[in-house]
C-alpha cells in the first residue's frame, strides 16, 4: 500500500498530539521517527498496526480515532481542493463519491482507496456503503463527510453504522445543502500558487 495513507496518519498524530507522541507510536511500530514516505509502498499490516498502536497510545476507540483522521484529511489544502472538485454543492459532492475511487485511480493507478457506493433514500437520507482494503474506512469517511459538510456550508447529520463484515455504512441526513456560506473554492488556483 502507498505510504500516503500511513503518512496521513502520521501527520494527523504529529499535528494533533505533537511529535513526542508520534515518536512513541513510531518506536512501538518499529519505524524511525522520520516515519513514512507518501510515494513509497509499505506492507499493509503496517497500516493496521499503526492504527492499533495509535488508538492504544491515545486510549481512544479505533473508530473515534479514524473519524478524527477523516476530518483531519480535509485540512490538508491540496486534498480538500481535490475533494471539492467533486461538485459545486454538498449534494453534488455526495453523488461524486461513487467516483471517488476512480478519481483516485486516475491520480495514481494503483492507489487503494475504498469503493464507495451511494444510495439515496427518501427525505434527504443517504447511505454510503464503504468497502475498503482496511477495516475502518467507514469511520474515516464519516469524519471526512462531516468536515466536508462544513466546508460546503451544508447542514447534515452523519452517523457511522456499526460495520457488518467487510461492509461498512455511513448514514448521511442532508438537512440543508446551502445552510452557511462554506469555504471558498476556485476551480483554478491563482497563478502564483498554481502548478509550477
Amino acid at each position, binding site marked *: 500500500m502507498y505510504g500516503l495513507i500511513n503518512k496521513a496518519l502520521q501527520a494527523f498524530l504529529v499535528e494533533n498530539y505533537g511529535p513526542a507522541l508520534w515518536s512513541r507510536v513510531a518506536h512501538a511500530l518499529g519505524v524511525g521517527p522520520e516515519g513514512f514516505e507518501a510515494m513509497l509502498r509499505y506492507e499493509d499490516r503496517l497500516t493496521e498496526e499503526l492504527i492499533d498502536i495509535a488508538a492504544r497510545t491515545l486510549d481512544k476507540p479505533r473508530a473515534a480515532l479514524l473519524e478524527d483522521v477523516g476530518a483531519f484529511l480535509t485540512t490538508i489544502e491540496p486534498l480538500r481542493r*481535490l475533494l471539492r*472538485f467533486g*461538485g*459545486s454543492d454538498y449534494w453534488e459532492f455526495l453523488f461524486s463519491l461513487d467516483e471517488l475511487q476512480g478519481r483516485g485511480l*486516475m*491520480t495514481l493507478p494503483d492507489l487503494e482507496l475504498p469503493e464507495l457506493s451511494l444510495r439515496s433514500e427518501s427525505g434527504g437520507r443517504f447511505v454510503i456503503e464503504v468497502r475498503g482494503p482496511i477495516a475502518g474506512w467507514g469511520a474515516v469517511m464519516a469524519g471526512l463527510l462531516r468536515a466536508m459538510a462544513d466546508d460546503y456550508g451544508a447542514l447534515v447529520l452523519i452517523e457511522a453504522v456499526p460495520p457488518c463484515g467487510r461492509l461498512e455504512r455511513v448514514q448521511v441526513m442532508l438537512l440543508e445543502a446551502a445552510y452557511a456560506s462554506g469555504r471558498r473554492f476556485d*476551480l483554478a*488556483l491563482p497563478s502564483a500558487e*498554481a*502548478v509550477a
Partner: protein
Amino acid sequence: MNSSLSPCKAVLQGGLSPAALGELMPMFLWLDRHGVICAAGPTLMKILGPGPVVGTAFETHFHLRRARARRHEQDEAHPGGRKLILMLLSHPEIGLRGTAVEVGPEGAEGMLLNLTFGIHLADAVREFGLTEGDFATSDLAIELLYLREAKAAVMDELRALNGRLEEARRAAERQALTDPLTGLANRRAFDAALQKAVRAQAHGGAPFALVLVDLDHFKQVNDHMGHAAGDQVLNWASAILAQEVRRGDVVARAGGDEFVLLLRGAIDRAALQTLGRRMIARLEEPCVVDGTPCRISASIGIAFSRDYPEPEVDRMLADADAALYEAKRSGRGRCSIHAAGAVA
C-alpha cells in the same frame, strides 16, 4: 439577444432555443452570414462581456488563427464542419478552438460555432472566474482541472522524495568513503583515487606520488595510555598530515596507525624528500593528551609515478611498501623514496 433574430427563429422552428443550445454548449457562438454575432452561450457571454456582444462583429472579439475543413467533411455532399483555432483579442494568451458548421441551406442562416479552451483551460478559468456551472456536464473540463492539481500534488511529493533519497545516497556514499575516527578518506576511497590517478597518468595526466606513512611508537601510546588516548593521537597525526598536503591531494587512513597519501601536481624527488622530513619532524613534536606529552614518530615510504613507464597500482604499492620497510629498517623516523628501476 434582441438583434438579428432571423437565425434564432430558424432554430426555434427546429424546437431548439438559444437557451437550450446554451445549456448543451455554453460556449456556442452564432454568426449570421455577415459574421455578426446573433447569439452566444452563457459562458462565452461572460468571457466576451460585459460590453455588448450580440449585434457586434466576430472580428471585434476574435482573431482567426487557422481554419481547416475537417477531413471527413470535405465531401461536397456533406458541407460544413470546419476546425477553427481562435485567439481572444482581449486576452491574446488565451487560445480557443472549436468547430463551425453552416446553418440553413448553403449557410443562409449563418454559422454555428462550438468553442473550447483546450490546454488554456486553467488560465481561462482563473482569468474569467469560471465555475463548474460554466461548463457543460458532458465537458471534461473539471476532470482536467482535477487531474492537473492531482498531478501537481504527486509530482511535488515525488520531487521531495527524490531530494531526500539523493541526500541519503550522498550521506551513505560519504560514510562509505570516510574513516569514522579521523574523518579522513578511508582505504576504499583512496584505492579509487589511486586507480584514477594511474589511469589519468596513462593518458598523459599529471605525475603523482604514492606516500605510505606508518606511525612509530604508536603501540606504546596505546598500551600505556589506553585506546582513547591512542585515538586522540591518531586524530592529531591526521590533522598534521592533512595540513601538509595541497588541495586536491588525498590523505587517507588505511587502518590502525597507517596512512596513505596521494600527492599530485608539480613535484620532484627533492620536494618529496623535504615534505617527508617535514611531516616526520612535526609528528615527532610532543602531542599532549590529558596533560601528558606523548611522543611518536613516523616512517615514510614513497613511490613516484615518473619512475614508471606505465605505472600500475599494485606495483607502485609494493614499491612504496618496500621503501617504507627500508625506512623502518634504517632506524625509523625516516623518509625513503623507491629508487627508479629498482625491483621491490
